[in-house]
């Protein structure tokens, strides 16, 4: 049985976030003799599993990458990261990417690998077929696969598709890694699979969803779940769909029950606003506008008009950026508005119920 058939039977999907069929991608890569870029950037906020794969399963990762890309394989990691150092120490061809959010995106890495800037490109057709950037520069066929995905490729080849399908759900088979961080005692990588209760995944990192703040699933491109929702939800596409979320890049961030979640979210949105590559208007203007709206809400603006404006802005950036970064942030903002609506009303009435956090300390954090 050849590699594509094996992958097809296993039902492996991309572990970088988009969950696209790996068999389809590898078939296209072989058809177009595409070069492979292994994405080990851990680009999403709180993502740590690419680093884990490189640290603990490098030999298998290289086997998987070689099966897909032959000798034309490069390993992308954030500049200055431990992952980059490990890849270099192993003598691999490292693509050193700027340590920024959108630079770890698929098309940014392709652009960087071919001498361009690490900024997303418009996809007229999948770059696995080759094509051109918006300036007309030729782009050679290139496929980008996540580090965990390629490790799973090696595992499927070694243990077979049946071993793989024995874990997870029929629709989302196979083992998966999740990075759990925030208010947990042992933050790090948890080996799990789709369908496991989110509560158990957090418990594996010695966190407790009975006594926690809300939970961000999927990082900047994810959603905020209330503590109660998170405690009841299974970690799967079906389980997270009611909240507008999905397993995505495998990141779970538990917020501190004693800190104000509104202030924490404000920090996330400010960070997002500074990560734009400055190419699409909805991103370079929309994200700072969303961050400013949120800051205003957090500072105690009258909730109804600020909320209306924020909803209008999240709707108007959705679906309009080349790399979907604005979609992701808008999704997080919309879910945060929903989950934190009571809390935002407290802010408007001048007191924040979260722990000992007072208004004055909020103002200090938000001014920063």
């Amino acid at each position, binding site marked *: 049985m050849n590699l594509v058939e094996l992958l097809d039977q296993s039902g492996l999907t991309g572990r970088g976030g988009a969950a696209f069929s790996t068999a389809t991608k590898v078939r296209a890569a072989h058809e177009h003799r595409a070069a492979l870029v292994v994405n080990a950037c851990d680009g999403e906020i709180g993502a740590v599993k690419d680093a884990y794969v490189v640290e603990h399963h490098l030999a298998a990762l290289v086997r998987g990458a070689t099966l897909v890309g032959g000798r034309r394989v490069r390993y992308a990691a954030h500049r200055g990261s431990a992952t980059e150092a490990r890849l270099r120490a192993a003598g691999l061809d490292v693509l050193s990417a*700027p340590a*920024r959010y959108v*630079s770890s995106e698929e098309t940014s890495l392709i652009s*960087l690998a071919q001498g*361009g*800037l*690490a*900024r997303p490109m418009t996809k007229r057709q999948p770059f696995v077929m080759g094509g*051109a950037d*918006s*300036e*007309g*520069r030729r782009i050679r066929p290139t496929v980008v696969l996540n580090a965990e995905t390629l490790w799973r490729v090696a595992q499927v080849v070694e243990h077979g598709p049946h071993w793989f399908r024995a874990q997870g759900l029929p629709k989302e088979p196979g083992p998966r890694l999740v990075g759990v961080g925030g208010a947990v005692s042992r933050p790090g990588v948890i080996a799990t699979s789709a369908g496991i209760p989110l509560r158990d995944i957090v418990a594996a990192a010695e966190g407790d969803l009975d006594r926690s703040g809300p939970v961000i699933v999927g990082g900047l491109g994810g959603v905020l779940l209330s503590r109660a929702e998170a405690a009841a939800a299974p970690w799967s596409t079906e389980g997270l769909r009611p909240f507008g979320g999905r397993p995505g890049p495998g990141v779970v961030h538990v917020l501190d029950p004693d800190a104000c979640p509104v202030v924490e979210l404000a920090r996330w949105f400010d960070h997002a606003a500074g990560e*734009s*590559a*400055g*190419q699409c*208007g909805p991103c*370079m*203007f929309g994200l700072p506008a969303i961050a400013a709206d949120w800051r205003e809400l957090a500072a105690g603006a009258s909730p109804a008009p600020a909320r209306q404006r924020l909803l209008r802005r999240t709707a108007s950036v959705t679906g309009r950026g080349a790399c979907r970064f604005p979609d992701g942030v808008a999704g997080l903002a919309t879910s945060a508005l929903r989950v934190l609506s009571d809390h935002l009303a407290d802010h408007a009435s001048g007191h924040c119920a979260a722990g000992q956090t007072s208004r004055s300390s909020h103002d200090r954090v938000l001014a920063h």
Partner: protein
Amino acid sequence: MNELLWFVSRATGTASIVLLTAVLVLGALTAGRRSRALSQTVVVGLHRSLALGTSAFLLAHIGTAVLETYVSIDWISAFVPFTAGYRPLWVGLGTLAFDIVLAVVATSLLRHRLSRRAWKAVHLMAFALWPLALVHGYAMGTSNEPLLRLVPVACAVVGGLALTWRALARHADQERRQAILTQEWS
């Protein structure tokens, strides 16, 4: 008949300069989004239509200049610069401008088949085309017809103002893009 052709040639030449300047001003207005009052679609549409209209006057100008036999300009010198028997340098500048017009029109008609970079490289040559046409018009205008020299001068002033504004004007897109580009991206 010959005299009629001569007059038509000068009239269409002068009209071409005025229209070309209008096209240039409209082109300068399309850079970035500046004005909410002036619809970008209208400006770009007018820029295109007027540019094609200008070519009609230009063809009439060149056709009549070649056909009339008062001075010696032949079909070759309509396309190859500096080959006219009559004032080769000044006629040649006009020929050069016409060659650029051909390139700009051809690439714009084929724009959907070209890369943005290739189209833009050719389109930027319009910045050379316009002064060439003005100098050609000014030098060919005779002193006993002050209007023929006044028109290029007036066009130079108007077009110069538009280009100055284009170069100096700032807008949010450009400033934010430039600020972001100074960050680490490679």
